[in-house]
Protein backbone atom coordinates (compact mmCIF):
# COMPACT_ATOMS: atom_id res chain seq x y z
CA UNK A 1 0.00 0.00 0.00
CA UNK A 2 1.48 3.22 -1.09
CA UNK A 3 1.69 6.28 1.06
CA UNK A 4 -0.66 8.04 -1.34
CA UNK A 5 -3.31 5.32 -0.83
CA UNK A 6 -3.03 5.57 2.94
CA UNK A 7 -3.35 9.36 2.90
CA UNK A 8 -6.36 9.29 0.58
CA UNK A 9 -8.06 6.59 2.71
CA UNK A 10 -7.62 8.61 5.89
CA UNK A 11 -8.91 11.70 4.07
CA UNK A 12 -11.96 9.81 2.84
CA UNK A 13 -12.67 8.56 6.36
CA UNK A 14 -12.46 12.09 7.71
CA UNK A 15 -14.95 13.32 5.09
CA UNK A 16 -17.39 10.53 5.93
CA UNK A 17 -17.09 11.28 9.63
CA UNK A 18 -17.69 14.99 9.02
CA UNK A 19 -20.79 14.26 6.95
CA UNK A 20 -22.18 11.77 9.42
CA UNK A 21 -21.77 13.86 12.56
CA UNK A 22 -25.00 15.93 12.15
CA UNK A 23 -26.93 12.72 11.65
CA UNK A 24 -25.45 11.30 14.82
CA UNK A 25 -26.29 14.49 16.69
CA UNK A 26 -29.92 14.32 15.46
CA UNK A 27 -30.22 10.90 16.99
CA UNK A 28 -29.45 12.36 20.37
CA UNK A 29 -32.68 14.42 20.56
CA UNK A 30 -34.63 12.65 23.28
CA UNK A 31 -37.85 10.98 22.24
CA UNK A 32 -40.68 12.70 24.13
CA UNK A 33 -42.35 10.92 26.97
CA UNK A 34 -45.71 12.58 27.41
CA UNK A 35 -47.16 12.43 30.88
CA UNK A 36 -49.56 9.61 31.58
CA UNK A 37 -53.22 10.55 31.71
CA UNK A 38 -55.59 9.88 34.55
CA UNK A 39 -57.38 6.58 34.81
CA UNK A 40 -56.51 3.15 33.55
CA UNK A 41 -56.49 3.77 29.85
CA UNK A 42 -57.31 6.25 27.11
CA UNK A 43 -60.66 6.26 25.29
CA UNK A 44 -58.97 4.10 22.66
CA UNK A 45 -55.73 2.18 22.26
CA UNK A 46 -52.71 4.47 22.77
CA UNK A 47 -51.09 3.65 19.44
CA UNK A 48 -54.39 4.24 17.66
CA UNK A 49 -54.77 7.59 19.43
CA UNK A 50 -51.21 8.63 18.57
CA UNK A 51 -51.90 8.09 14.91
CA UNK A 52 -55.52 9.15 14.60
CA UNK A 53 -56.21 11.82 17.23
CA UNK A 54 -56.19 14.73 14.74
CA UNK A 55 -58.87 13.25 12.52
CA UNK A 56 -60.88 12.02 15.50
CA UNK A 57 -60.89 15.49 17.01
CA UNK A 58 -61.67 17.17 13.71
CA UNK A 59 -64.50 14.78 13.01
CA UNK A 60 -66.08 15.13 16.40
CA UNK A 61 -65.76 18.91 16.48
CA UNK A 62 -67.78 19.14 13.27
CA UNK A 63 -70.39 16.72 14.60
CA UNK A 64 -70.69 18.69 17.82
CA UNK A 65 -70.73 22.18 16.41
CA UNK A 66 -72.70 21.66 13.23
CA UNK A 67 -75.06 18.86 14.23
CA UNK A 68 -75.23 19.35 17.96
CA UNK A 69 -74.11 15.81 18.77
CA UNK A 70 -72.88 15.82 22.34
CA UNK A 71 -71.26 13.38 24.70
CA UNK A 72 -69.03 11.37 22.38
CA UNK A 73 -65.64 10.37 23.67
CA UNK A 74 -63.16 12.02 21.30
CA UNK A 75 -63.45 15.53 22.66
CA UNK A 76 -60.66 18.05 23.15
CA UNK A 77 -62.28 18.84 26.49
CA UNK A 78 -61.79 15.20 27.46
CA UNK A 79 -58.12 15.19 26.38
CA UNK A 80 -57.44 18.35 28.38
CA UNK A 81 -59.23 17.06 31.47
CA UNK A 82 -57.44 13.70 31.49
CA UNK A 83 -53.97 14.73 30.40
CA UNK A 84 -53.48 17.86 32.52
CA UNK A 85 -49.85 18.12 33.67
CA UNK A 86 -49.24 19.74 37.03
CA UNK A 87 -46.74 22.59 37.13
CA UNK A 88 -44.59 23.85 39.97
CA UNK A 89 -47.57 25.70 41.46
CA UNK A 90 -49.59 22.46 41.52
CA UNK A 91 -51.89 23.86 38.81
CA UNK A 92 -52.13 22.41 35.31
CA UNK A 93 -49.68 23.99 32.91
CA UNK A 94 -50.92 25.78 29.80
CA UNK A 95 -49.78 25.17 26.24
CA UNK A 96 -47.20 27.93 26.81
CA UNK A 97 -45.29 25.49 29.00
CA UNK A 98 -43.07 22.91 27.23
CA UNK A 99 -44.36 20.25 29.65
CA UNK A 100 -47.95 20.57 28.36
CA UNK A 101 -49.17 17.15 27.21
CA UNK A 102 -49.90 18.22 23.63
CA UNK A 103 -46.76 20.25 23.33
CA UNK A 104 -44.38 17.47 24.35
CA UNK A 105 -44.86 15.63 21.08
CA UNK A 106 -45.86 18.53 18.87
CA UNK A 107 -42.58 20.32 19.57
CA UNK A 108 -40.66 17.12 18.82
CA UNK A 109 -42.36 16.56 15.47
CA UNK A 110 -42.46 20.31 14.70
CA UNK A 111 -46.19 20.33 14.01
CA UNK A 112 -47.78 23.63 14.96
CA UNK A 113 -51.29 23.41 16.32
CA UNK A 114 -53.68 26.29 16.71
CA UNK A 115 -56.35 24.62 18.85
CA UNK A 116 -55.34 26.77 21.79
CA UNK A 117 -55.79 30.05 19.99
CA UNK A 118 -59.45 29.62 20.89
CA UNK A 119 -59.70 26.64 23.24
CA UNK A 120 -58.41 26.76 26.78
CA UNK A 121 -55.46 24.40 27.28
CA UNK A 122 -56.21 23.59 30.92
CA UNK A 123 -59.30 22.16 32.63
CA UNK A 124 -61.76 24.87 33.63
CA UNK A 125 -62.27 23.60 37.15
CA UNK A 126 -58.59 24.26 37.87
CA UNK A 127 -58.68 27.77 36.49
CA UNK A 128 -61.62 29.26 38.30
CA UNK A 129 -63.51 28.22 41.36
CA UNK A 130 -66.63 30.17 40.56
CA UNK A 131 -67.45 32.62 37.86
CA UNK A 132 -65.15 34.87 35.92
CA UNK A 133 -63.53 37.70 37.84
CA UNK A 134 -65.19 40.95 36.87
CA UNK A 135 -62.03 42.92 36.18
CA UNK A 136 -63.51 44.24 32.98
CA UNK A 137 -67.27 44.37 33.17
CA UNK A 138 -68.89 44.54 29.77
CA UNK A 139 -68.78 48.06 28.51
CA UNK A 140 -71.54 49.94 26.80
CA UNK A 141 -74.25 47.81 28.34
CA UNK A 142 -76.83 50.40 27.39
CA UNK A 143 -75.94 50.82 23.78
CA UNK A 144 -75.37 54.18 22.23
CA UNK A 145 -74.73 52.60 18.86
CA UNK A 146 -76.84 53.40 15.90
CA UNK A 147 -79.30 50.58 15.95
CA UNK A 148 -82.06 49.52 13.64
CA UNK A 149 -84.50 48.99 16.47
CA UNK A 150 -84.96 52.60 17.47
CA UNK A 151 -85.36 53.65 13.87
CA UNK A 152 -87.90 50.99 13.18
CA UNK A 153 -89.92 51.28 16.33
CA UNK A 154 -90.12 55.02 16.73
CA UNK A 155 -93.68 56.13 16.64
CA UNK A 156 -94.65 52.84 15.05
Amino acid at each position, binding site marked *: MTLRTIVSSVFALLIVAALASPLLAAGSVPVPEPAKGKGEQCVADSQFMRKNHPSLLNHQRD*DTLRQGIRGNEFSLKGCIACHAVQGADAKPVTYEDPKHFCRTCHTYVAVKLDCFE*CHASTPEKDRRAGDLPKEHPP*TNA*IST*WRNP*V*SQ*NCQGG
Partner: protein
Amino acid sequence: MSCGNNCGDNKSSRRSFLASMATGAAGATAGLTLAPGITLFSPAQARSKGEAASSKVRWGMLVDASKCDDGCTACVDACATENGWQGHGNPATDAQWIRKVKVTDPAKGTSQTLPMMCQHCEEPPCVDVCPTGASMKRADGIVLVDKHSCIGCRYCMMACPYQARSFVHESVTDQRTHAPRGKGTVESCTFCVHRVDEGRQPACVEACGGTKRGALVFGDLNDPDSEISGKVAQYPSQAIRSDLGLKPGVRYMGLDT
Protein backbone atom coordinates in the same frame (compact mmCIF):
# COMPACT_ATOMS: atom_id res chain seq x y z
CA MET B 1 -95.74 51.74 32.52
CA SER B 2 -99.05 49.98 32.25
CA CYS B 3 -99.29 46.25 32.23
CA GLY B 4 -99.64 46.43 28.45
CA ASN B 5 -100.38 43.14 26.91
CA ASN B 6 -100.08 41.08 30.02
CA CYS B 7 -103.50 41.75 31.50
CA GLY B 8 -105.31 39.41 29.17
CA ASP B 9 -108.08 37.00 29.95
CA ASN B 10 -106.55 35.30 32.93
CA LYS B 11 -109.16 32.57 33.19
CA SER B 12 -108.67 31.24 29.71
CA SER B 13 -104.90 31.61 29.89
CA ARG B 14 -104.82 29.76 33.15
CA ARG B 15 -106.96 26.99 31.76
CA SER B 16 -104.71 26.52 28.75
CA PHE B 17 -101.72 26.80 31.03
CA LEU B 18 -102.93 23.95 33.21
CA ALA B 19 -103.82 21.95 30.15
CA SER B 20 -100.35 22.46 28.79
CA MET B 21 -98.94 21.28 32.11
CA ALA B 22 -100.91 18.09 31.85
CA THR B 23 -99.73 17.35 28.34
CA GLY B 24 -96.26 18.60 29.18
CA ALA B 25 -95.80 15.90 31.76
CA ALA B 26 -96.03 13.26 29.08
CA GLY B 27 -94.76 15.28 26.14
CA ALA B 28 -91.59 17.09 25.28
CA THR B 29 -92.18 20.07 27.55
CA ALA B 30 -90.66 19.56 30.95
CA GLY B 31 -92.53 21.28 33.75
CA LEU B 32 -91.95 21.20 37.47
CA THR B 33 -94.98 22.15 39.54
CA LEU B 34 -93.97 24.20 42.56
CA ALA B 35 -97.50 24.95 43.72
CA PRO B 36 -100.91 24.77 42.08
CA GLY B 37 -100.72 27.06 39.07
CA ILE B 38 -96.99 27.77 39.46
CA THR B 39 -94.84 25.69 37.17
CA LEU B 40 -91.24 25.98 36.23
CA PHE B 41 -90.72 25.23 32.58
CA SER B 42 -87.43 24.06 31.23
CA PRO B 43 -87.00 24.26 27.46
CA ALA B 44 -87.01 20.53 26.84
CA GLN B 45 -85.36 17.32 27.83
CA ALA B 46 -81.67 17.08 27.01
CA ARG B 47 -81.04 15.03 23.92
CA SER B 48 -79.53 11.65 24.49
CA LYS B 49 -75.84 11.05 23.85
CA GLY B 50 -74.97 10.99 20.17
CA GLU B 51 -78.32 12.42 19.07
CA ALA B 52 -78.17 15.30 16.60
CA ALA B 53 -80.19 18.49 16.87
CA SER B 54 -83.52 18.07 15.12
CA SER B 55 -85.39 20.37 12.76
CA LYS B 56 -88.56 19.35 14.61
CA VAL B 57 -87.42 21.84 17.23
CA ARG B 58 -87.22 25.57 16.58
CA TRP B 59 -85.62 27.38 19.48
CA GLY B 60 -86.89 30.86 20.08
CA MET B 61 -87.04 33.61 22.64
CA LEU B 62 -89.81 35.99 23.56
CA VAL B 63 -88.75 39.29 25.11
CA ASP B 64 -91.37 41.18 27.08
CA ALA B 65 -90.13 44.75 26.82
CA SER B 66 -92.73 45.95 29.31
CA LYS B 67 -90.93 43.95 32.00
CA CYS B 68 -87.43 45.04 30.98
CA ASP B 69 -86.19 47.80 33.27
CA ASP B 70 -83.90 50.65 32.31
CA GLY B 71 -80.63 50.21 34.16
CA CYS B 72 -80.94 46.46 34.63
CA THR B 73 -78.15 44.60 32.86
CA ALA B 74 -78.63 41.19 34.46
CA CYS B 75 -78.91 39.46 31.08
CA VAL B 76 -75.82 41.17 29.69
CA ASP B 77 -73.74 40.42 32.79
CA ALA B 78 -74.88 36.80 32.89
CA CYS B 79 -74.03 36.30 29.23
CA ALA B 80 -70.58 37.85 29.66
CA THR B 81 -69.84 35.60 32.62
CA GLU B 82 -71.27 32.50 31.01
CA ASN B 83 -69.39 32.93 27.75
CA GLY B 84 -66.32 34.82 28.94
CA TRP B 85 -66.46 37.89 26.69
CA GLN B 86 -65.47 40.56 29.18
CA GLY B 87 -64.38 43.78 27.50
CA HIS B 88 -61.03 45.49 27.26
CA GLY B 89 -62.33 48.98 27.94
CA ASN B 90 -62.76 49.73 24.23
CA PRO B 91 -66.49 50.12 23.63
CA ALA B 92 -65.95 50.56 19.90
CA THR B 93 -64.32 47.17 19.43
CA ASP B 94 -65.18 45.08 22.48
CA ALA B 95 -67.14 41.92 21.82
CA GLN B 96 -70.77 42.25 22.74
CA TRP B 97 -72.99 39.20 22.40
CA ILE B 98 -75.99 40.94 23.94
CA ARG B 99 -76.65 44.60 24.69
CA LYS B 100 -79.43 46.73 26.07
CA VAL B 101 -80.85 49.23 23.62
CA LYS B 102 -83.12 52.13 24.39
CA VAL B 103 -86.03 52.75 22.06
CA THR B 104 -87.77 56.10 22.18
CA ASP B 105 -91.13 57.15 20.88
CA PRO B 106 -90.54 60.79 19.91
CA ALA B 107 -94.27 61.52 19.70
CA LYS B 108 -94.92 60.48 23.28
CA GLY B 109 -91.47 61.07 24.67
CA THR B 110 -91.50 57.68 26.34
CA SER B 111 -88.70 55.19 26.08
CA GLN B 112 -88.11 51.54 26.80
CA THR B 113 -85.05 49.35 27.00
CA LEU B 114 -84.78 45.89 25.62
CA PRO B 115 -82.04 43.34 25.08
CA MET B 116 -80.71 42.97 21.54
CA MET B 117 -78.71 39.97 20.47
CA CYS B 118 -78.47 37.52 17.57
CA GLN B 119 -82.06 37.04 16.46
CA HIS B 120 -81.38 33.50 15.18
CA CYS B 121 -83.11 34.14 11.88
CA GLU B 122 -84.71 31.39 9.90
CA GLU B 123 -83.24 33.07 6.81
CA PRO B 124 -79.99 34.40 8.25
CA PRO B 125 -78.19 36.91 6.01
CA CYS B 126 -74.92 36.20 7.83
CA VAL B 127 -75.06 32.63 6.54
CA ASP B 128 -75.85 33.81 3.02
CA VAL B 129 -72.80 36.04 2.76
CA CYS B 130 -70.21 33.89 4.54
CA PRO B 131 -67.54 32.94 1.99
CA THR B 132 -66.27 29.90 3.90
CA GLY B 133 -69.44 28.34 5.30
CA ALA B 134 -68.34 29.21 8.83
CA SER B 135 -71.55 31.10 9.51
CA MET B 136 -74.16 28.39 9.82
CA LYS B 137 -77.60 27.51 11.12
CA ARG B 138 -78.17 24.35 13.08
CA ALA B 139 -81.14 22.13 12.35
CA ASP B 140 -82.93 23.49 15.41
CA GLY B 141 -82.56 27.08 14.22
CA ILE B 142 -79.59 28.19 16.31
CA VAL B 143 -77.25 30.35 14.23
CA LEU B 144 -73.58 29.84 15.03
CA VAL B 145 -70.08 30.67 13.80
CA ASP B 146 -67.83 27.69 13.13
CA LYS B 147 -64.61 29.36 14.18
CA HIS B 148 -62.62 26.49 12.69
CA SER B 149 -63.49 27.88 9.26
CA CYS B 150 -63.99 31.57 10.07
CA ILE B 151 -61.37 33.73 8.37
CA GLY B 152 -62.46 36.91 10.11
CA CYS B 153 -63.58 38.71 6.95
CA ARG B 154 -66.53 40.24 8.83
CA TYR B 155 -68.95 40.11 5.90
CA CYS B 156 -71.50 38.63 8.30
CA MET B 157 -71.15 41.61 10.59
CA MET B 158 -72.00 43.90 7.71
CA ALA B 159 -74.89 41.71 6.59
CA CYS B 160 -76.54 41.48 10.01
CA PRO B 161 -79.26 44.13 10.33
CA TYR B 162 -79.20 43.75 14.11
CA GLN B 163 -75.48 44.44 14.56
CA ALA B 164 -75.44 41.31 16.63
CA ARG B 165 -71.98 40.05 15.75
CA SER B 166 -68.59 41.01 17.13
CA PHE B 167 -65.05 40.54 15.94
CA VAL B 168 -62.43 39.47 18.46
CA HIS B 169 -59.57 41.94 18.16
CA GLU B 170 -57.38 40.82 21.06
CA SER B 171 -55.74 37.54 21.93
CA VAL B 172 -57.90 35.63 24.39
CA THR B 173 -56.80 33.41 27.23
CA ASP B 174 -58.70 31.66 30.00
CA GLN B 175 -61.73 30.96 27.82
CA ARG B 176 -64.71 29.10 29.15
CA THR B 177 -64.36 25.49 28.05
CA HIS B 178 -67.88 25.45 26.60
CA ALA B 179 -67.37 28.74 24.73
CA PRO B 180 -64.07 28.74 22.84
CA ARG B 181 -63.22 32.13 21.37
CA GLY B 182 -60.11 33.60 19.83
CA LYS B 183 -58.58 36.53 18.03
CA GLY B 184 -59.45 36.97 14.39
CA THR B 185 -62.86 35.31 14.44
CA VAL B 186 -66.42 36.59 14.57
CA GLU B 187 -68.81 35.58 17.31
CA SER B 188 -72.30 36.23 18.56
CA CYS B 189 -75.02 34.94 20.87
CA THR B 190 -75.27 31.16 20.67
CA PHE B 191 -78.53 30.90 22.64
CA CYS B 192 -76.14 29.25 25.13
CA VAL B 193 -76.16 26.20 22.89
CA HIS B 194 -74.12 24.20 25.41
CA ARG B 195 -76.86 24.73 27.99
CA VAL B 196 -79.73 24.15 25.58
CA ASP B 197 -78.21 20.83 24.55
CA GLU B 198 -78.27 19.85 28.22
CA GLY B 199 -81.92 20.85 28.51
CA ARG B 200 -81.15 24.06 30.40
CA GLN B 201 -82.18 27.66 29.78
CA PRO B 202 -79.78 30.25 28.31
CA ALA B 203 -77.88 32.22 30.95
CA CYS B 204 -79.68 35.50 30.16
CA VAL B 205 -83.11 33.93 30.63
CA GLU B 206 -82.06 32.39 33.91
CA ALA B 207 -80.60 35.70 35.13
CA CYS B 208 -83.67 37.68 34.11
CA GLY B 209 -85.85 35.20 35.98
CA GLY B 210 -83.49 35.60 38.95
CA THR B 211 -84.32 39.30 39.11
CA LYS B 212 -88.04 38.38 39.33
CA ARG B 213 -88.71 40.33 36.14
CA GLY B 214 -89.10 37.31 33.90
CA ALA B 215 -88.94 39.39 30.76
CA LEU B 216 -87.32 36.58 28.76
CA VAL B 217 -88.98 33.31 27.82
CA PHE B 218 -87.03 30.66 25.93
CA GLY B 219 -88.40 27.53 24.37
CA ASP B 220 -89.45 25.51 21.36
CA LEU B 221 -91.63 27.52 18.98
CA ASN B 222 -92.60 24.29 17.20
CA ASP B 223 -94.03 22.76 20.35
CA PRO B 224 -97.58 24.04 20.78
CA ASP B 225 -97.50 23.13 24.45
CA SER B 226 -94.40 25.14 25.28
CA GLU B 227 -94.69 28.31 27.33
CA ILE B 228 -93.23 30.42 24.54
CA SER B 229 -95.67 29.09 21.95
CA GLY B 230 -98.56 29.77 24.31
CA LYS B 231 -97.46 33.34 24.85
CA VAL B 232 -96.77 33.97 21.17
CA ALA B 233 -100.25 32.68 20.37
CA GLN B 234 -101.90 34.64 23.16
CA TYR B 235 -100.21 38.03 23.05
CA PRO B 236 -99.31 40.27 20.15
CA SER B 237 -95.59 40.14 19.53
CA GLN B 238 -93.37 41.27 16.73
CA ALA B 239 -90.07 40.53 15.10
CA ILE B 240 -87.70 43.45 14.82
CA ARG B 241 -87.36 44.52 11.19
CA SER B 242 -89.98 42.00 10.17
CA ASP B 243 -90.04 43.83 6.83
CA LEU B 244 -86.79 42.08 5.95
CA GLY B 245 -88.48 38.68 6.00
CA LEU B 246 -85.71 37.02 7.99
CA LYS B 247 -88.16 35.30 10.35
CA PRO B 248 -86.15 35.77 13.54
CA GLY B 249 -86.38 33.27 16.39
CA VAL B 250 -86.39 36.17 18.85
CA ARG B 251 -89.67 38.05 19.17
CA TYR B 252 -90.59 41.10 21.22
CA MET B 253 -93.84 41.91 23.01
CA GLY B 254 -94.98 44.76 25.22
CA LEU B 255 -93.40 47.36 22.98
CA ASP B 256 -95.01 50.67 23.79
CA THR B 257 -95.39 51.82 20.22
